[in-house]
């Protein structure tokens, strides 16, 4: 159970938390920084100032109320659907891999992949927006020909760690996978 500081592909600080429950069961949690009050303040103020400017010209109070509503709803949606607080990867030898990402609002999305479907875990390269990044992904087998890769499940999608972090996770995943084959 140790914390380590890394950066994501845009240089923002993230922390990797490795939690080893047992020799064949580890949990990795990548947590990105909390949503900063300053940012929220800036956005809210900007929206409200804009609204006030509009209100100043069109003497219509509906503008202000709508602005408040917009900011609230926007914040709600943001923390509920956009802002991912931390993503965790639970590797249980010979049982499977569980990927879960929990949003700032506490909403949690979890998927469990059985070991019989997993072919391998690899670090891969992809072109993302205007840069080329490394990412960790789980390769799934074709149901019938086990050597074919049917599809790919990328891990840590919202907080994109850099190579160093990925390699650390990757290595200990490989340990477990190799011991439990």
């Amino acid at each position, binding site marked *: 159970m140790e914390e380590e500081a890394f950066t994501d*592909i845009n*240089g923002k600080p993230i922390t990797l938390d490795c939690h080893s429950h047992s020799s064949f069961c580890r949990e990795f949690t990548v947590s990105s920084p909390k949503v900063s009050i300053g940012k929220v303040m800036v956005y809210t103020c900007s929206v409200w100032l804009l609204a006030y400017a509009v209100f100043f010209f069109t003497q219509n109070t509906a503008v202000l109320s709508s602005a408040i509503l917009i900011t609230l709803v926007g914040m709600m949606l943001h923390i509920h659907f956009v802002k991912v607080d931390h993503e965790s990867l639970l590797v249980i030898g010979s049982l499977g891999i569980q990927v879960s990402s929990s949003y700032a609002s506490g909403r949690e999305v979890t998927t469990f992949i059985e070991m019989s479907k997993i072919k*391998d875990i690899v*670090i891969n390269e992809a*072109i993302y927006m205007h*840069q*080329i*990044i490394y990412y960790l992904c789980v390769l799934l087998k074709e149901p019938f020909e086990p050597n074919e890769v049917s599809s790919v499940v*990328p891990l840590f999608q919202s907080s994109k760690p850099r190579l160093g972090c990925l390699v650390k996770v990757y290595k200990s995943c490989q340990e477990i996978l190799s011991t439990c084959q």
Partner: protein
Amino acid sequence: MGQRRRAGAVKTLSSERDSADVARICNRKHNICMVSDFFYPNMGGVESHIYQLSQCLIEKGHKVVIATHAYGRRRGVRYLTNGLKVYYLPLQVMYSQSTATTCVHSLPLLRCVFVREQITVVHAHSSFSSMAHDALFHAKTMGLNTVFTDHSLFGFADLSSVLTNKLLTITLCDTNHIVCVSYTSKENTVLRAVLNPEIVSVIPNAVDPTDFTPDPSQRPADRITIVVISRLVYRKGIDLLGGIIPELCLKHPDLHFLIGGEGPKRLVLEEVREKYQLHDRVRLLGALEHKDVRGVLVQGHIFLNTSLTEAFCMAIVEGASCGLQVVSTRVGGIPEVLPDDLITLCEPTVRSLCDGLEQVIAKQRSDSFPSPASIHNRVRNLYTWKNVAERTEKVYDKVVGEEVLPLAKRLRRLRSHCGPVAGSIFAFVAMLDFLFLLLLQWLLPDRFMDVAVDATGPHGLWRQKTSRKKFD
């Protein structure tokens, strides 16, 4: 789309299983990035040149990556033999597999490639490829040394070539070194992109002699076969071929034509075949895979090339390497390629070509030609990729030493070198490019880019990985 790309990129499987040991980068000689619009899955002279050259350089212990544009679903990062890494960048293709050039939009991706691969030399190919031009431009903005290989000849007459030449002048005006495939091509390039001939080297193309070995047993004894292998387009003089076929076929009843290749001019040949009832003697094989070419070549006695312009004709070398008698038009760099006793040069007219073929056929009948094996032995050592790689390496060594012009000088050079109008326009564009680069560096500093894991080379991770995969 991301999903799709990743699904595509899975080919790279566990090439990065082990961690990035950056130390390996240091003992390299050069980190080279080949940039061109034309690469596999597209097929042609430039493509094979880039591939073979890269392989040889990797064998020599350099690090080579290739950047080209995405071909349909083939986008992202792929690995080829010996861990040759290919970036298929998602840039918009404009026409004939050449990307649209705005001198700016391709900067972010190319910068990413250059930085993360720690490139020291940028090597661009083919003046048809606008991506190559962009790469040269950006590389200079980023302060990298550049090399450019020109594979094609251009006229000076029509408007399009005038424009292309202007573009070439601009992109090559501060390129460190230029490589041409033949002396004619060198002269042409020097004239087009008003250059100092001292910085233009001539390094011919090569063919892999082991792929093109003669096999006389394949030749039918009762007939004489003329083989033509080229794309069926105007530039390859297919109209001439359409004139030659009936002339000779009427004279020699035992003459057969074997034509490989595809293109718009196929109609011409088919019409000729229809008109003169030559279906049994003129066989159109359609498009050929590179591996099938040898099988076609060895069936023939004479190799005919009717091109109207060629910088360096690989086809005739392949033909000669298979022990065929080569008859070709005297255009472009072709006279330089083969010694006179291996090739019969004619003027690009039906008359002259027919005469040349007549002589060769006559000699063939009296078989006063050396045996295919001996021809092969002579040709075998003329052009090898190893030699090409050595000479290119020299160019790199020379280039790396040179200093890159700072922005001010670069602008001045552009203004002075490329004429007042275009010069100042592109000086402005260079300014923009520089500012854009600054913006990008502010948005994403270089230190936040992961250095790419280096898999290439004989001792690279690639080999280790494959070997390790074997025993587990």
